[in-house]
């Protein structure tokens, strides 16, 4: 409801300025927990979703942690204020832990991928040629079946 207060103050002539009511109010507290704003989830559903994304991310799905951070971005960037919902702190803890998990995983994966790509043969030896994906795909005939 509060989001609609922003609308009349925006420029009426250009419809583009009225795209979406801002999820973050000027005082720093949030009205909507998700990045979709009024089209997204409510605060209770947001807590369930944040928890579900966090725990499913442990099943080798760090991208879910990234989705968690992206989806609840307004919660992540704003501070708790007395006017915010009681779910705020719990959602925020899930999202912060998800972001830590995703950063750690991202750093590890990027490091490994870059080592493999840049190191190449003089780091791994002749094994590199067998391991690299395009040779492996040819050897296993992965692209021939469709």
């Amino acid at each position, binding site marked *: *409801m509060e989001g*609609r207060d922003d609308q*009349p103050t925006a420029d*009426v*002539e250009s*419809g*583009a300025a*009225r*795209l*979406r*009511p801002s999820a973050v109010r000027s005082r720093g507290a949030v009205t909507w927990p*998700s*990045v*979709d*704003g*009024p*089209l*997204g*989830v*409510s605060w209770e*559903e947001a807590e369930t*979703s944040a928890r579900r994304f966090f725990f499913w991310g442990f099943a*080798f*799905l*760090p*991208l*879910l942690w990234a*989705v968690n951070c*992206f*989806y609840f971005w307004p919660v992540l960037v704003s501070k708790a204020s007395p006017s915010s919902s009681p779910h705020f702190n719990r959602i925020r803890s899930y999202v912060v832990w998800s972001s830590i998990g995703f950063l750690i995983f991202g750093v590890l*994966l990027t490091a*490994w*991928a870059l080592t*493999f*790509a840049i190191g*190449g043969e003089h780091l791994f030896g002749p094994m590199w040629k067998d*391991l*690299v*994906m*395009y040779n*492996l*795909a*040819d050897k296993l005939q*992965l*692209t021939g079946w*469709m």
Partner: protein
Amino acid sequence: MDDRSTDSDPVTAGESSILDTLGEDVIRIVSPVSLCMLLVVLLVSSLSSTNDLSSSISSLFLSSTTPTSFSSLNLLLLGSDSTWEEIKSALITALSFVVVVTLLTFLLVLLFYFRCTSFLRIYMGISSLFVLSFLGGFISLLLISHFKIPIDPLTFAILLFNLSVVGVFAVFMSKFPISMNQGYLVAIGVLTAYWFTMLPEWTTWALLIAMSLYDLAAVLLPVGPLRLLVELAMSRNEEIPALVYEARPVDPQLGDRVRVWRETTDVSIEATENSTNSANVQTVQETRLAVSEEITAPLIEAFPQTGDRHLGTEEEEDGIGLGSSGAIKLGLGDFIFYSVLVGRAAMYDYMTVYACYLAIMAGLGVTLLLLAVYRKALPALPVSIMLGVVFYLLTRVLLEVFVVQCSSNLLMF
């Protein structure tokens, strides 16, 4: 400028007219369709002829005839027997595909009638997992082999697993970021469309024409399966489990995405005194009331429709309608067949790509216009595909000769 601002202030103080949001609504449905077509064209052109990314992108703008055009010319010249054989096999393939799709759509109607929605959703989840993981993995392997990207199997497996599982969640969970939902739907469309372009040439064209005729029949005929499905869903106030792209509504009103027709039933209880007896007029009145009071969505009250596509391994919706929050809905089958047409045009030359793109956009515009006039579920395939095919033939036969002659004589272009 000053007059405009003083004039508009008292009139548009609290409300906006439909015209303010009309362009934005159309853009929000045209952009993903264009993006899907662009990605398919890039995939087709990079994986078929040239060997590095920069030259394939530069040839997108230079529009020169590629070697593939000469090969198809040779085929036409060499043997009319072989062409006739190809045409026959193409017609048989297209006909059998349409028959299979009809049967599967009737099966879908039957399952929906017996309320097996959980089975349908599980089936659709499995089929989109199949598309994202197998087809996505296959196409990314083609790209990796083509561009010699030095990725190792572990990273590749992790990325593929993550992207496909999160994709299935994005397409089916309602509590997911809208942008990721839309992005993954476009990705599924791109992958399926690229797979279809791998069919032989005559088969692709026969398939496109057959599917557009099928779409026309299935949505408009009273015995058509898509129309039955839509009427079932309307009467039960349920949403059909299907893959549909829903554009984000321009002016989001309060709260959750509420269903249009649930609100209309509330309105109709109060307003039935003025309505006539026929149910059609009642629904039109109800929804018109809902549209004017609730949502500043421009065009239509129409209903989602489904169509079975892709050899029965997945269900996507076909046709165009108005989503529950007042946004335009376009079925994923439409994305796929538009992109197949443009991808097949890309296999000849980029001139046909531009011509077919314009034809498809014109067809989409005409369909949206018809939707505004007729206010019911409409097939989005026939107009665009027919215009696209006509423009492809005209470009290939007439325009190319003209442009090549002009360019080689340094006259124009």
